[in-house]
């Protein structure tokens, strides 16, 4: 399958007390059309810096090349409270992505928002509410819906379920799985939780201190890890979840 994203020799450098510090160093990988690629690693290993560099949010200190082969990618963040404008109603927030582009009239925008609400299993009455009146799970559904309004082919989800409790987590994961199937979007799924990655992804990359130490098919990485760091991660995870 064709690539939707090519990352070559990407590094992100921060200056810390005048000493250079690489949050991401010399990372290369591809994301193929319509796949879910997992990016696993402990907190602080550079996962978020990597995603910000891919999206071009972070520009300072970024070297290497990032090539997108599809429309502008969208992002779903970890904290669903911070990723919704607190002073706008949900209806406004969901319309914003297509309002910004300006090629639909009001009625068409409303229709598209309603369609999207059905896709993410939300009630229409939610449109008149403010973000702080929703539960964490509802908010994350809204975030996903907003990210999909421009019909992207590629979505980056940065720890999208880490702030939610376990039952809601599995609902959101199911939703992502279903949307992935229905819409054929590629997802770069970032998580520190190996169990979640295992449930969702086709391929997986393991990241440690800014480097990708292992990359491959899910089963290979989980059951036949090569790198000592991956091995220790898997052992730890197995004793916890994969008995």
């Amino acid at each position: 399958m064709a690539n939707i994203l090519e990352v070559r020799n990407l590094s992100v450098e921060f200056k810390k007390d005048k000493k250079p510090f690489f949050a991401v160093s010399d990372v290369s990988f591809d994301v193929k059309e319509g796949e879910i690629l997992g990016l696993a690693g402990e907190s602080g290993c550079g996962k978020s810096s990597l995603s910000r560099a891919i999206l071009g949010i972070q520009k300072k200190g970024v070297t290497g090349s990032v090539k997108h082969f599809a429309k502008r990618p969208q992002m779903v963040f970890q904290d669903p409270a911070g990723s919704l404008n607190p002073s706008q109603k949900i209806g406004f927030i969901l319309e914003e992505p297509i309002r910004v582009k300006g090629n639909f009239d009001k009625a068409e925008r409303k229709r598209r928002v309603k369609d999207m609400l059905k896709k993410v299993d939300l009630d229409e009455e939610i449109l008149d509410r403010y973000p702080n009146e929703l539960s964490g799970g509802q908010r994350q559904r809204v975030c996903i819906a907003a990210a999909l309004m421009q019909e992207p082919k590629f979505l980056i989800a940065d720890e999208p379920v880490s702030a939610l409790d376990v039952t809601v987590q599995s609902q959101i994961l199911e939703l992502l799985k279903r949307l992935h199937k229905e819409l054929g979007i590629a997802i770069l799924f970032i998580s520190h939780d190996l169990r979640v990655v295992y449930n969702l992804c086709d391929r997986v990359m393991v990241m440690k201190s800014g480097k990708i130490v292992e990359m491959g098919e899910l089963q290979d990485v989980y059951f036949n890890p090569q790198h000592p760091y991956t091995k220790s991660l898997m052992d730890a995870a197995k004793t916890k979840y994969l008995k």
Partner: protein
Amino acid sequence: MDKTKTRNVKFILGLTLTGIILVMMIAGIVHTPYDPMAMDLSAKLEGVSFKHIMGCDNFGRDIFSRVLVGVRETMFVAAAVVFIGTFVGIIIGTVTGYFGGWVDEILMRFNDAVLAFPSVLLALLVIGIMGGGTKALIIALGIAFVPSFARIIRGEVLRIRNLDYIQCVRLYGASHLRIIVVHILPNLRTVLLSSVLIGFNNAVLAEAGMSYLGMGAQPPYPSLGLMLSEAQGVIYSNPWNAVFPGLVIVIMILGFSLLSDSLEKKT
């Protein structure tokens, strides 16, 4: 529970005091018992009576009428000053906070310079250039009020612009102007509300102080600060000349600070 109770008390008290001031201000516009500028030498330094409920000043002018008009003057100057401060402050604060870089450096260093400069001295400078009067006072104090607003707004914009939802909107391809106007400015309102109320207080004090020094409203036109300064000469023989305008200033400040205090913690 206890905290909400004191907050409510503060809110109600603040509202009442501010209400009294507002009623006085409206009364000053609609009707005053005497012409605030009419001198009546037969009533010179007359004490408190039913005819003149706050007494009369050195020129036999009714102090109550003068206070009513003075409140209006003070409120007008304070409101105009806060408006200038907030308006320019929002522009400078948003531009510096949002774009950062060298624009931020230059404007904020300039801001610091103005902030470090004593505001009375700054006002003196502007009034010296423009000549005295209310208009010059408003501009002078307005300039002096910009830096503190700009700093507050800048900090808040800096916080908001790094929130995830701004990143989301940026990924939609929204323009900077749209991000600022639609997604940042509306979220400044809580910070703005309390700083406007506090700023209003400071402006009332500054106006009173400046007209006390003779740089605001020009006699015979009344202003609270000017009345205090005129009362100074007769403070031992006729203390009410100073007490009533002073009391009104205290009520004004107290009302607004209680109000801003209770609102600040509510949000």
